[in-house]
């Protein structure tokens, strides 16, 4: 009985849990400066943007699509917000404009995919190129920075720390939870609630598993798909905002390749590129795994090219662990089914 319970729990966790735990423990043991409050807070704040993007990406993947425009949208919305700020616009207005533009790109993605029936891979890939090129054209490929605000406004509020706990006197022993991290967690929580407590989740899985049966079951594929792409655009715009506030300026190429990291994080988390399965928490843990590897290696002063090799190998190991876990879960459930049959 106990073993049965354990097996249920084993298969219930997102796939990337195991690789994340392995990587995290290994990093804590091998790299002395890794497991310090200061570094953990840096790691989490750095991972914010990718966590948001992998959330968006995993919903798109579960729906049976893919959104390769996320990186481009991050750059574009970031540039739009930063340029408005430089022009002296109110921060709330600038952020609103950025979010809206992200949603517009998402809507266009939806239209091209659903109305023009272009495969999502190529539609969003093209759209990502368009968004990135808008970012480059507007900013003339130069870093956009703005005058530091004299009094507290929305920007300084968002750039602040929500909570600081001192464990020692050096910076490494200060745990600081940034407002950006709180905001990210809040938004992800809202997405998770929407996904698992409303029809959004079940409809997404249904669309991803078989679009035709979903349509026959009364789900309008066009409307849901477009909606999900708009949501993905929105999340990407938030990620752009997070990056912009964290770095206090914006480099127009900031979003480049982020969509690939998001795909990798999502797939590490058990999402299939064929759609119909996967989970959002898995994708987020995947994103954290990637950042743990990168952070630990840069702390120990490893050459960036070696980091690339290691990330590639981590990916393969992660996928193999996913496979092994799934295999054992399937074996266990088969064994259980056998007992019931007897």
């Amino acid at each position: 009985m106990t073993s049965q319970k354990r097996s249920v729990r084993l298969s219930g966790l997102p796939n990337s849990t195991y690789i994340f735990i392995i990587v995290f423990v290994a990093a804590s043991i091998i790299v002395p400066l890794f497991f310090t409050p200061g570094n953990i807070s840096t790691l989490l704040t750095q991972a914010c943007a990718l966590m948001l993007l992998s959330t968006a990406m995993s919903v798109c993947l579960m729906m049976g699509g893919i959104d390769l425009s996320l990186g481009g949208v991050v750059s574009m919305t970031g540039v739009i917000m930063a340029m408005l700020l430089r022009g002296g616009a109110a921060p709330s207005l600038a952020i609103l404009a950025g979010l809206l533009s992200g949603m517009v790109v998402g809507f266009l993605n939806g239209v091209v995919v659903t109305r023009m029936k272009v495969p999502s891979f190529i539609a969003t890939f093209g759209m990502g190129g368009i968004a990135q090129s808008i970012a480059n054209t507007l900013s003339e490929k130069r870093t956009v920075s703005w005058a530091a605000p004299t009094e507290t406004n929305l920007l300084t509020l968002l750039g602040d720390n929500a909570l600081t706990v001192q464990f020692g006197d050096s910076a490494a022993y200060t745990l600081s939870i940034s407002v950006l991290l709180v905001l990210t967690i809040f938004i992800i929580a809202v997405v998770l609630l929407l996904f698992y407590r409303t029809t959004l989740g079940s409809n997404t899985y249904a669309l991803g598993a078989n679009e035709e049966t979903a349509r026959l079951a009364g789900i309008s594929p066009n409307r849901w798909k477009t909606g999900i792409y708009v949501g993905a655009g929105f999340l990407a715009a938030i990620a752009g905002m997070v990056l912009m506030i964290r770095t206090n300026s914006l480099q127009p190429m900031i979003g480049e390749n982020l969509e690939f990291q998001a795909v990798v994080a999502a797939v590490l988390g058990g999402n299939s590129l064929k759609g119909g399965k996967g989970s959002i928490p898995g994708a987020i843990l995947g994103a954290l795994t990637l950042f743990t590897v990168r952070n630990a290696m840069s702390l120990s002063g490893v050459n960036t090219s070696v980091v690339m090799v290691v990330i590639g190998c981590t990916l393969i190991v992660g996928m193999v662990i996913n496979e092994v876990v799934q295999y054992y879960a399937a074996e266990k459930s088969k064994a259980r089914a056998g007992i019931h049959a007897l």
Partner: protein
Amino acid sequence: MDKKNLLTKRVKSTVYGLSSVVIMLIVFAIFAVLNMFQGISFLSPSNLSTILNQASFLVIVGIAQAIVILMGGINLSIGSVMALTTVMWGDMLLKTSEVNPLIPAAMVILTAAAIGYISGLLITKLRITPYIATFAVMYACRGLAWVYLRNRVIYGVNQAFRDLLVGRLFRVAGFNVTMPMLIALIALLAFFLILRGTTLGRKWYFTGANPTAARFSGINTDRMINIAYTVSSALAGFAGLMYMARLNSTEPGLAGDTHFEAITVSLIGGFAMAGGYGNIWGVAGGAIVVYTIQSGMNMLRLPGELQALINGVLIIFAVYLNQTLSKKKMELDNDLSDARMAQRQHSMLKEGASR
């Protein structure tokens, strides 16, 4: 149904089948007109030969991608395999080297094939999605290339070797016929024959269209996939040699965006991401489209930032057109086969009546 109607349908179906050619002509027309306003003759023989020459490089990587897409997979590691293999053996291909350049060239292709075989094993034995497996290989190869060469650049390639791969053959009325064109043509022909005429090719199509059905009908699908990735990667290695010969140098950052270009080329060329559908000649059309867009916009002196925008729009539009046309072709083909069936029935009835 009258005969004339049938004939127009048959012609239409053939035209729709050549969708990548249609897209190519449209793109050519757009840029010819746009450049005409600037007083540049876009369709001059010398410019056409430049476009064809450059497109030939894309044809090789396009085929490498297309055969993998045909199997329902994707190969993101093309560019980085090109970089890693040429960087590994590049020193032996230099002017200063005493070794016969054919030996390192063969080693490049063999190493690339070995990497492709590893990708294939990751996909078939470890059951990793192609996208992720080749992404990991891409990262690993690119990283290894940087680790191996550090910040050096390999420069000054053996001239005889360069001539062999990128030299000019002859000149007809201002149109240069070059080695890359010949190589691309041979490659296209070879893969056309493999896909059309050999059991391997038919098994590839079948495996791509429906792996389960293929497995149950006795095809060793894992082996087919392994072979496809090995061949794809070996072609990437060969393309790496061609790029190296063209640039007269190689470095770990070589061919950074090539996997994208290759995907674009094969999708415009009419290969379906789902696998099992596509015609190898489409790759030629796709390569020409991609390079025409680049060259056309360069001639118009559009800023690089704006080029990416137009590129994005054109890719979406081209794939849209491609799909619409191939769907129409399928409808027409259905009509045609219906008509043929009706005709046959009709004649059989007639025969029966005359007896």
